[in-house]
């Protein structure tokens, strides 16, 4: 029965699929889908399913077969216009968008280390911490507090540096984190893979504990209380007012400066991500990227081919670290507050689970992974908690076993169980789909035999299989050259 049904449905599916192969049709579909979901989110700002559907439009733009120009157009409108407006209308969404952007950046950085070179880094937040505390120290009044007891107010109201030096510190954070990564990597990258995981884990904890305790003898980090009142770059007040008034009829209220700061940091994170993606793509398609891949697949063979394994690993380690550094600076400014708690081992595992979920070594996969994990973590779990709370207060009873919801333990609060979420993601992905939801293109190609590859005319916007084979040949050549 089901067999015949599926047989009957097959031509319909095929027709739908072929309809989508036309880039104009796909373009129209993407626009219509974006419009519909935007309207859904706009008119029901608290509905989780609508929000998820809305987020799916981002994936749709990536997945549909459109030309690069069409993708860029829809993507830009979505990212630059629709998301800020939707975000200002429901400010908690804007926080989520920023988190997604920030963690995508972190995950992309970690992806270089874990996905491209196959080194497991369990202390990735250490580099994030370096960037965050760099700007937190120089961008706050901490410089005047060096010999004060933590928690006291500084005597002056001045800041050590002007707020707009933030932009400079983005690059300093990038550089410092890269340097720290380099210095850590120098001794530890010689050890074998599973030891490296523990050493990096240890490094992450060392950084966190140090930040927690450096309030004496010199008060550098303010200890467990963290550094507060970190400056943000100055937004011109006139522009904020004008934009706020201009958007007021759309979003329902005159947006405050704080809300514009959220938009600003979202956009900044977006720019940083674009920069990171650019760097990662260029690196990945270069000699360095191919060397990384060779090291990942077989370290011994790579070394035998003349690839200087340790220095290439070191490069991957510092590049990955630098991205965390720049995101850290951005994070410190956006929160105006940092404390050691934000850089726990759990954060590192959170980022790792994004990379694993999306697909090791795959850029779109990693971004998708970050989105899914953030939405699960900050929306789905929270909503579950709210729902359970609602049930508790409703006074309802489960009929058959006669269990009153009221008696449900208040400890059963899904929002508190992030570790379980991350753990389950890691285990399930490793057992059932170790390559991730969206495995990298090249590896997919490697896994297939040549006859199975997709005919090239169906993927005009992506690199064709023939080109990829060329790349593999290039790689062999490059390695030969290196030798």
């Amino acid at each position: 029965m089901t067999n015949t049904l599926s047989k009957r449905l097959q031509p319909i599916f095929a027709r739908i699929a072929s309809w989508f192969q036309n880039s104009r049709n796909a373009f129209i579909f993407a626009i219509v889908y974006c419009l519909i979901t935007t309207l859904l989110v706009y008119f029901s700002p608290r509905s989780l399913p609508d929000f998820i559907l809305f987020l799916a439009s981002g994936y749709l733009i990536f997945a549909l077969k459109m030309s690069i120009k069409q993708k860029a157009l829809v993507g830009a409108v979505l990212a630059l216009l629709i998301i800020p407006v939707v975000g200002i209308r429901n400010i908690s969404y804007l926080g989520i968008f920023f988190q997604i952007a920030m963690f995508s950046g972190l995950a992309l950085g970690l992806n270089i280390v874990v996905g491209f070179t196959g080194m497991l880094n369990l202390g990735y937040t250490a580099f994030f911490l370096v960037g965050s505390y760099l700007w937190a120290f120089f961008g706050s009044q901490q410089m005047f507090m060096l010999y004060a007891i933590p928690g006291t107010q500084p005597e002056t109201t001045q800041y050590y540096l002007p707020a707009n030096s933030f932009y400079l510190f983005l690059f300093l954070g990038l550089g410092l984190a890269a340097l720290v990564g380099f210095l850590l990597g120098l001794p530890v990258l010689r050890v074998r893979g599973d030891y490296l995981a523990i050493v990096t884990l240890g490094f992450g904890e060392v950084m966190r504990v140090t930040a927690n305790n450096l309030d004496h003898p010199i008060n550098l980090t303010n200890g467990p209380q963290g550094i507060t009142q970190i400056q943000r770059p100055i937004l011109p007040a006139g522009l904020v007012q004008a934009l706020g008034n201009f958007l007021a009829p759309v979003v329902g209220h005159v947006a405050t400066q704080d809300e514009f700061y959220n938009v600003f940091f979202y956009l900044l994170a977006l720019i940083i991500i674009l920069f990171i993606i650019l760097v990662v793509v260029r690196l990945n398609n270069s000699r360095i990227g191919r060397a990384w891949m060779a090291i990942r697949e077989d370290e011994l063979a790579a070394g035998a081919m003349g690839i200087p394994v340790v220095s290439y690993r070191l490069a991957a380690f510092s590049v990955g670290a630098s991205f965390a550094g720049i995101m850290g600076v951005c994070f410190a400014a956006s929160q105006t507050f940092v404390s050691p708690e934000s850089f726990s081992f759990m954060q590192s595992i959170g980022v790792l689970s994004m990379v694993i979920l999306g697909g090791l070594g795959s850029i779109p996969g990693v971004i998708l992974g970050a989105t899914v994990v953030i939405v699960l973590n900050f929306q789905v779990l929270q909503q579950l908690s709210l729902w359970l709370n609602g049930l508790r207060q409703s006074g309802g009873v489960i009929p058959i076993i006669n269990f009153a919801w009221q008696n449900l333990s208040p400890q059963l609060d899904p929002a508190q169980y992030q570790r379980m979420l991350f753990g389950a993601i890691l285990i399930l992905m490793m057992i059932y789909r170790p390559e991730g939801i969206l495995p990298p293109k090249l590896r997919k190609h490697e896994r297939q035999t040549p006859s199975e590859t997709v005919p090239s005319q169906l993927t005009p916007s992506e690199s064709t299989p023939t080109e990829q084979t060329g790349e593999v040949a290039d790689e062999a050549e490059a390695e030969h050259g290196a030798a």
Partner: protein
Amino acid sequence: MQRKNNSLFIKDISQGVLKPLGQIILFILGTSLVLSALMLLLALVLSGTAIDQKAFSDNGVSLMRFTLENLPQVLIDGITLGFVYAMIALGYTMVYGVLEFINFAHSEIFAIGAFVGVEILIALNGSGVLANATVLESYGWLVLAILAGMAASGIMAMIVERIAYRPLRNAPRLVPLISAVGVSFFLQDAIRLTESLTTGQFYRVFPSFGNFDSLVPLYNFAIGASNIKLSISVKSIWVIVAALVMLVGLNYLVNVTKVGKAIRAVAQSQSSASLMGINVNRIISLTFLVGGAFGGAAGVLYALKFTQINPYMGFFPGIKAFTAAVMGGIGNLTGALLGGMILGMLETFVGAYLSTFTMGAAGSEYKDILAFAILILVLIFRPSGLLGEQVAQKA
């Protein structure tokens, strides 16, 4: 089966019981002597400096005297802690020896043991059994709690292996490791969930009963004007004795019995072992069972010593025990003992002296990360560990 004759039996006993006992005593004495000598030397070198003066104004005694007076107690605490670390380290090192894989979830196996043991004792305490128990009975209940913790942890370790590691046994190295990290995180919250649903809270306290908190005076001796009282608490004695018994038992199991031979065979080569008729999967399960049981026992003993437990308690002891295993040479049972002892001692030394010797700039708050510093140093300078052999890296 033929009965073993007398000389073989004596050989077994000397191999399985006396040798490990001797090794343990040797390790304790060696580490104590070396570390004490280093500490006293440091105090001697620093005498008369600003550090000495600061110590004098803070404690009323010179740095040398301060070091000397605290030393015996520090050593006893260090030995106790060292035994706990050694027991956890055995779990890591056994699994590594057999599978060449870091069982990241072992720290949570340890926590599960602690929770099961403590929950049983809390339940007994609630029913009033413990309050009326004589000293001997209370020891009996403690042994029961340890056994229950061992059983729970051992079975849990087997389940974890079956679900999360066995399907990945032939995958690349990184894959089971990531899965193990996932299991570790999952179990932390699973413990928390179970605890909060059944008891409403997940921070538990070891109930006080019996005479575990009382101190047994060991020795009184005078150094100059000050009289040093050296004493050891009953719970520390329990930790040391229980750990000793089990460590010797494990050595006997691995080095003398037939099962131990099978475990060693599988560690050397799985394929050859299976050709010899050994059921490799069963032996690996058994390894997890034994290693997990040791973790569980360590958990209950840890709870006895430090009284407070929570679902995330396993993290630091786990990392330290892993460091101990690596330091001793991972895969090497004796090495795990030595590493655990050194690490436990070092940690107690840092906790007791670092603050004074750095004039308060850095204190015992850094003792948790000491293990990482040691780990990094060991991996750089002697990756095979103190007692390990140089082995080529397997791809």
